[in-house]
């Protein structure tokens, strides 16, 4: 017999709720297990490892701050940090600026069919290995490469482009630009066209409407695109190594160098934790900015 509530005449039905919960949990469980095993676990281990000691090329469990004080007192660490941060910031600024006109045209100036094809073509670079794409720049950027040959016909050059910061940034663009264009195009396509026309109607010139209306409306998407660019550039090892010449090293290269020289895994862990903290801070700041709505009384 089920009991009935005398007032509402509804059948008391308590167990259903609990059943539903375990059902929902069974769907969530795989991702929770995966993230715990392969993300949270290694992350905790990495933080712990940054306090370990290395003696006779062997790592020993310990809780000493010596790795941190060693790394933080070295100029090369801070040089590397500011270089990486500056290059990633530059990369984000350049990619966002280079991508915007293309995204704007794709979102506002072409037919939906052209837009679909363009987005498809922008995804194609991701089919090939990033390493292959970076090596193909050798042919173009080398001292005797295609770009210098072209400049030579105008009586310019030759310029050294490989093993420079310029080379690193070209590599970063190879990695990030297609993605930034795709994300920006999505952000701009979702804008309500009536709002842009309303701005024109109120005396806003088409050029002015880009920063008066379009950029505020697409703010979230534009910031997320820039954030992805920063994260990818900041953590990239391939471009600064093969196109930037690895001197001075960026943080990812510093990690490799540190592990190679004397098995200093704990010091590499310090660099990794610093990178992690930087990216988390940047990501939170960017998302807070992206989703900030004005205070309302």
């Amino acid at each position: 017999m089920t009991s009935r509530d005398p007032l509402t005449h509804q059948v008391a039905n308590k167990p259903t709720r609990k059943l539903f919960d375990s059902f929902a949990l069974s769907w969530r469980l795989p991702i929770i297990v995966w993230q715990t095993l392969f993300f949270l676990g290694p992350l905790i281990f990495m933080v712990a490892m940054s306090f370990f000691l290395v003696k006779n090329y062997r790592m020993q469990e310990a809780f000493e701050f010596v790795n941190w004080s060693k790394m933080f007192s070295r100029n090369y660490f801070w040089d590397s940090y500011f270089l990486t941060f500056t290059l990633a910031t530059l990369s984000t600024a350049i990619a966002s600026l280079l991508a915007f006109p293309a995204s704007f045209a794709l979102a506002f100036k072409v037919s939906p069919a052209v837009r679909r094809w363009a987005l498809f073509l922008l995804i194609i670079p991701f089919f090939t290995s990033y390493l292959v794409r970076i090596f193909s720049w050798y042919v173009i950027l080398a001292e005797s490469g295609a770009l210098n040959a072209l400049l030579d016909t105008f009586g310019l050059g030759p310029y050294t482009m490989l093993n420079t910061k310029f080379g690193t940034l070209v590599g970063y663009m190879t990695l990030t630009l297609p993605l930034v264009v795709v994300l920006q195009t999505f952000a701009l396509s979702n804008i309500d066209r009536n709002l842009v026309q309303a701005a024109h109607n109120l005396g806003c010139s088409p050029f002015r409407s880009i920063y008066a209306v379009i950029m505020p409306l697409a703010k979230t998407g534009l910031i997320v695109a820039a954030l992805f660019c920063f994260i990818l550039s900041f953590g990239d090892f391939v471009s600064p190594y093969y196109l930037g010449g690895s001197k001075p090293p960026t943080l990812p290269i510093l990690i490799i160098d540190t592990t190679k020289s004397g098995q200093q895994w704990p010091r590499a862990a310090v660099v990794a934790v610093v990178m992690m903290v930087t990216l988390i801070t940047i990501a939170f700041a960017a998302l807070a900015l992206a989703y900030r709505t004005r205070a309302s009384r």
Partner: protein
Amino acid sequence: MNTPLVVFENVAKHFGDFVAVKELNLAINAGEFIAIMGPSGCGKTTTLRMLAGLDQPSRGSIYIGEQLMNDVRPHQRDTPLVWQSLALFPFLNARENVEFGLKMRNQDAQIRRSKAMEWLERLGVAEFAERNVDTLSGGQRQRVALARSLVTEPQLLLLDEPLSALDAHLVIRMQSVLTQLQRELGITFVYVTHSQSEAFAMADRVVVMSNGEIAQAGVPRDIYREPANRFVAEFVGRNNIISGTANTVDEKSIQVKAPMGTFDVPTKTNTPDTDKKFSAGDMVTFVIAADLVQVTRTKPKTENSVECSLISEEFVGSMVTLFLETADGTEFKVQLQERELSTLDHTTEGAFYLSWQSDSAHVLHG
């Protein structure tokens, strides 16, 4: 006669194969409240968008204040539009939305602010000035949108079905806000709507559009009582439309023989320039408005009467519409006051008789 503020001269607008506006000739006087009314797809919104410069005419010329506007870009005009969706900027608060037009005209921040507050005050939403527009109610958003359009003190205000998203009681309130504003400011309102009640309640002159052309333009009363053609008669009000052949035609009236009877109809029409002369044997269509028909249970002695049976009734508060049918299957609508119905013995079986004064009927052209 003063010169008109807005003139459409043989204006047409095509979108590919689709003809939105076929051939538009219209003059709008300064200070006039004009409503452009018609079903969806009749070209009324395109007409308004062409005035704002958001669509360019494919053919013809549009003048505002004697200046040819065809190639003037939207942002170079002073033709603010109140959008159907309101199109308030979600990233600005109410006051900043109102300030937008002044900011684009590079006005000083101090002046912008005080003018914006002045208009928000005038429309009764000053207390919400610093609020996010998404947190305002429909009526409040409406007022902010109006303030945003009026803050630059334009000569011409364009309104695209601005009340269509509001509750019925708010529509009535906003109608009086709009008419009062228009009277106080003395500027020209061009108001696009599909609702005849909005158009008739507010406009000095109503333009009925159909398939990209003007079906009729005139004061609300003429549109309502003297429709020019079958389209207007069917679109506006509740009209009974009767077709027949002319028996005899004289100066004042035509005797029309229709399947359900013979009727006298005055020759006066509302299309003076295309005044068509009828002669005996011609096909004649005339209308008799549903509220000008008397209904009785006994056969009246007057002319212009038909015998019907009652099909159904529709009750809308104070008004009742009866749907009746003649023996040959023609449907008639009669509109009466609810209290008139109680004096009519309409529940018992039997014939109903409809009758009307000859001069209540109105001949249609086309």
